[in-house]
């Protein structure tokens, strides 16, 4: 398995909000967290919310200090996640395996020439 960095930006929090203030990080650099674990507490002009993590992985960087205003779309956090060496992204179904020797039960009688 190889590691890849994935950066998560401040998502659109709806209702036309364009920015949010980071109140308190619920994770620290080095933490290994699961998907949907509490990530960061932010405040918008409407309310305070806790954003769950969109990603499982190890936190490698927090891009905004507490009390900083972050515009929607700006980097919030970077995760290191494990990725398969040869990704078969999005495959639906399975790769067919070829039988070494095709099997059969029927035998043919050659035609009279």
């Amino acid at each position, binding site marked *: 398995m190889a590691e890849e960095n994935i950066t998560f930006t401040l998502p659109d929090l709806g209702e036309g909000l364009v920015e949010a203030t980071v109140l*308190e990080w619920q994770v620290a650099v080095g933490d290994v967290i699961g998907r949907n674990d*509490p990530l960061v*507490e932010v405040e918008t002009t409407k309310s305070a919310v806790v954003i769950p993590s969109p990603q499982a992985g190890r936190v490698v960087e927090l891009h905004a200090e507490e009390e900083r205003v972050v515009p929607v779309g700006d980097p919030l956090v970077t995760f290191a996640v494990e990725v398969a060496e040869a990704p078969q992204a999005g495959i639906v179904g399975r790769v067919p395996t070829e039988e070494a020797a095709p099997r059969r039960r029927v035998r043919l009688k050659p035609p009279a020439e």
Partner: protein
Amino acid sequence: MTANLIGDVTMRYVDLPPQASDGSVPVLLLHGFGTSFDMNWRAAGWPRVLEAAGRRVIGPDLRGHGGSDKPTESGLYLPEHFVDDLLRLLDALDVEVVDVVGYSMGSRLAWSLALTAPARVRRMVLAGFGPTDALAGLGETAPGTGDTPFDHVFRTVAALPGNDPEALAACAHGQAADPFVPVPRPEGVPMLLVAGAEDTVAAGASDLAAACGAGFVEIPGRHHANAVSARAFKEAVVDFLG
């Protein structure tokens, strides 16, 4: 699950089972004025914290709010109506006793619930709430037109999608008709008060706590709108409810 309690004023509520129950009583979360269970509690990360603590969460949208019916007559928003709604909900869910956590208006209603039915409230947290009635002096004036802390709250929440400003104004007038008084205190219900250090709506919360013999936790640096999601608040509640 999310369901509706059908009645004269139908109430939407959620009933969330814990990750692993330890047999403790459910927690009833009462949101503040102009918000809803989802906005006040869910978005702030509360269900997850309480579920992880082994607690079942019951979260109504109070009448006039969220997905519940929104009548526009102020006479339907007296504290006793809310208390009736809550007792009807607990009966419908076959829940005898709960811990109650209120925020702002929800705290005032928690207090009323505990006064009306002390046997059904085991412990109670009043957050974002103080002895000064936020609605004092509202009278017949339209809320949101002045410069009191409540006017500011009203203007913010009246503009939220899904809210009905007329119903919210009726709710404000209904509650103002029966102002909060800190005596008598609900007997036999252990109480904790929590407030942001900058919360003007909850001014005097520590005095009320002292007068009631309740604990008090202050959230540094937080005001009325952003104290709800604070980790310190959640930890204090989980600790207090035990």
